[in-house]
């Protein structure tokens, strides 16, 4: 048993063998950024092919592989691990715990990710190519009609699932068991709350996804007929199971993002978060509702009309708690003393663009209208508004916000602001026109399109290259900060920031809160 005042070990073994939540958080963050670049590269190939009508760069089959891998890598490789990384760094610091509850398992959760993705990416080089059936891998395209590499895809999903389940069990145990004395549930920062609820969602739905891919495996290799009508099964059954996982999954992506924004906006408004309690309840309500809305992705599969109505009403309801959150954020800004450092800019960008994405989500939830929207670029526009301008903007905000605390150095503010503005404009140029082409009738997942969609697609591609390129600036800024940023030693860093992590020295020492802090009776949030 070691001396608790030692610092990190030296060399590679520090990272391979670490049990320290900060090290593990750092690894998650870098890994997810690498995956973001990979998934972004796939997106660039998609956008380059769609730059003009006609087939120019890739073959249709390969295009489908790009779409599939782009979705999978972004969702499972970039967004989810990035927020797990944040959770690792911040949750112990925010609740006054010395580390995560189960540190060795924490390390394991991380380390199975890179080889899992390596296996997934290696399918690109296998005979028959990588999975080409979309990130939703509907049977039977993903079973009887898939390339042999699908077997490795299935096992990769299993591995990622194991990682997520272990990671979330760890987070649940940490939050339930490791809070410092006096840190009651209703005093926890919202970021901790949103992750707490997200972790429950993960433990509940990742195993269902594992079940779905297991049945695929059986259909492919063992002659079962879960998804084949000839034996009495049903391809639509796959979709039900997938979306029982898939819909909560999109809230898994967005809830921690909500958490981040709920920390950043009050800090730069210099005003406590408005409606803390209702934020917590709204988050819980969104999570609970997310279990009974899955078939809104399946309005056109031919469900009986009663089912259709049920899922439509349930889905529409989600607008209520989400609206509460949006209104609370705006009220937090109202009559605050606002300043617009980079994290705040990204959070405001999040707020505006996520809300637009939420509105299109609400439009999609109207079943009869979705008969015209479904599987068009309107849907693509919707989910990039909530996932890129939602999750990615929020994540970017988080990195700028906590980077000084992590590294003890300040990023370049000007460059940060430029990064924001290019991202904001680039993003909208990319995805706003997609609403138009979608409404005008362009299906998604096509490598080529009719002539009337040409102009908007070209615009969209240009926007995508701009947005993509602006991420180089982000990467540069982060690295420059770590290497040679201006030193900060002030514990507070941001004058309006609240929370335990800001009471720690800057940069945060390797081990923190080995002795739990005492949380005063004064409530942190009112």
């Amino acid at each position, binding site marked *: 048993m070691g001396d608790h005042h030692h610092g990190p070990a030296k060399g590679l073994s520090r990272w391979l063998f670490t049990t320290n939540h900060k090290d593990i958080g750092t690894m998650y963050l870098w890994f997810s950024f690498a995956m973001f670049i990979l998934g972004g590269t796939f997106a660039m190939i998609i956008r380059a092919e769609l730059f003009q009508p006609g087939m120019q760069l890739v073959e249709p*089959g390969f295009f489908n592989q790009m779409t599939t891998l782009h979705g999978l890598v972004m969702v499972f490789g970039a967004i989810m691990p990035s927020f797990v990384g944040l959770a690792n760094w911040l949750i112990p610091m925010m609740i006054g715990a010395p580390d995560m509850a189960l540190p060795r398992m924490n390390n394991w959760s991380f380390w199975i990710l890179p080889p899992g993705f390596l296996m997934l990416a290696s399918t690109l080089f296998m005979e028959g190519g990588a999975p080409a059936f979309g990130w939703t891998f509907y049977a039977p395209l993903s079973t009887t009609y898939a390339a042999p590499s699908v077997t490795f895809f299935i096992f990769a999903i299993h591995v990622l699932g194991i990682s997520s389940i272990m990671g979330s069990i760890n987070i649940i145990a940490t939050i339930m068991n490791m809070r410092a004395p006096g840190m009651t549930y209703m005093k926890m920062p919202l970021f901790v709350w949103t992750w707490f609820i997200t972790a429950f969602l993960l433990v509940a739905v990742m195993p269902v996804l594992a079940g779905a891919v297991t049945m695929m495996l059986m259909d492919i290799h063992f002659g079962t007929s879960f998804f084949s009508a000839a034996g009495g099964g049903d391809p639509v059954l796959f979709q039900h199971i997938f979306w029982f996982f898939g819909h909560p999954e999109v809230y898994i992506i967005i809830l921690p993002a909500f958490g981040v924004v709920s920390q950043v906006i009050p800090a730069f408004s210099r005003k406590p978060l408005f*409606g803390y309690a209702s934020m917590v309840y709204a988050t819980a309500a969104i999570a609970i509702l997310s279990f009974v809305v899955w078939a809104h992705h399946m309005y056109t599969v031919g469900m009986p009309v009663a089912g259709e109505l049920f899922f439509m009403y349930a889905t529409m309801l989600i607008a209520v708690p989400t609206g509460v959150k949006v209104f609370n954020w705006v009220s937090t800004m109202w009559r605050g003393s606002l300043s617009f450092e980079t994290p705040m800019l990204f959070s405001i960008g999040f707020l505006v663009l996520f809300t637009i994405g939420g509105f299109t989500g*609400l439009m999609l939830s109207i079943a009869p209208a979705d008969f015209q929207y479904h*599987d068009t670029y309107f849907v693509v526009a919707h989910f990039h508004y909530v996932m890129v301008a939602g999750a990615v903007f929020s994540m970017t905000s988080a990195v700028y916000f906590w980077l000084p605390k992590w590294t003890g150095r300040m990023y370049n503010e000007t460059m940060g602001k430029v990064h924001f503005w290019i991202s904001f404009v680039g993003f909208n140029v990319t995805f706003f026109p997609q609403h138009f082409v979608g409404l005008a009738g362009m299906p998604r997942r096509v490598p080529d399109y009719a002539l009337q969609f040409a102009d908007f697609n070209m615009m969209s591609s240009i926007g995508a290259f701009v947005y993509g390129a602006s991420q180089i600036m982000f990467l540069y800024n982060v690295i420059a900060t770590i290497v040679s940023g201006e030193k900060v030693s002030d514990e507070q860093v941001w004058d309006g920031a609240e929370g335990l992590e800001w009471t720690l020295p800057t940069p945060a020492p390797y081990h923190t809160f080995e002795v739990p802090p005492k949380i005063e009776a004064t409530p942190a949030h009112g």
Partner: protein
Amino acid sequence: MSIKKSLMTAGATLSALPIAALAQNQVNMSPGVTRVGAEIYDLHMLIMIICIVIGIGVFGVMLYSIVYHRKSKGYVASQFHESTKVEIAWTVVPFLILIGMAVPATSTLLEVYDNDDAELDILVTGHQWKWRYEYLNAEGENVSFFSNLATPQEEIYNSEAKGEHYLLEVDEPLVIPVDTKVRFLITANDVIHSWWVPEIAVKRDAIPGFINEAWSKVDQEGIYRGQCTELCGSYHGFMPIVVHAVSQDEFQGWMSAKRADKDAQIAASSVDLSLDALMTEGESVYKTQCLACHGGQGEGGVGKAISGSAIAMGDLGVHLDVGIKGVAGTAMQAFGEQLTDVEMAAVITYQRNAFGNNTGDVVQPSDVAQHKQG
């Protein structure tokens, strides 16, 4: 296409964008040519406008705050952080708005689902990557045919200028009468497809082994185009739908012509053809039916190579078997019903003599008919 050229096009487009693009392009959903379509369009406009209004409200408040409540202007933050009254208000009001949306949505949905009392039934079957239409006729003698993409490869691969209906044209369109409630029975043969024609307001997934119902009653004669909207493999982007809505009379005429065609085909299968005739016909069948998987030079792709294939150069019976019955569990489907005996004979002859296979074999329609009988 050179980089320079694309950059120039890009530049030109960008500068002209706001005005030109909006003028040329359709930017909104089309109300289409059916009553249901118009209702869906109204519903779409209603919810969109509600969302825009709420958005303006929310963003307006935020913008006000951003402009006036700035630290740089010396604005001092107030510290309020709770108000049960407003919180209840902004829970209840959106809820009421949602009810306002749900009511018209429900009635439109029920109408979409009202599949009874159709005057004409058409069975629509999705195949990788073409549609098959079968008119279910109460008196039997169903008319059926396949509808393939008609856009030539040269246009897709940019060696020829693209036509007006690039990717949205087929060799044989679906023909329906106007002012008639047509019911589409939608299913698939292999993977899931989805049959969508925006203007007649029908989109329904085609699930292999299950039949979904949808209907449409078209008000205006015209040509309506759509596409498969469920990812169905490599050529998902290349399986368009074209619907000709014609008058009742025209429809009847078309129907009788179709029936006559069928009889002619049966007669044709007993006539022998020359190698040349078979090769010409075979090449065109190959291009529409087989090329997507087996490649322009028979080099293979999704399917195995035909050039030098042991099957295409070996026993004729096996070759016919593969063509007619397909290969179970692979993308190689049974073409026996999709092609007439003449077409099948032609394409098999073609495969046995093209791409350097030079077997010199000639397969006649009667051989195919015989092989089918076993």
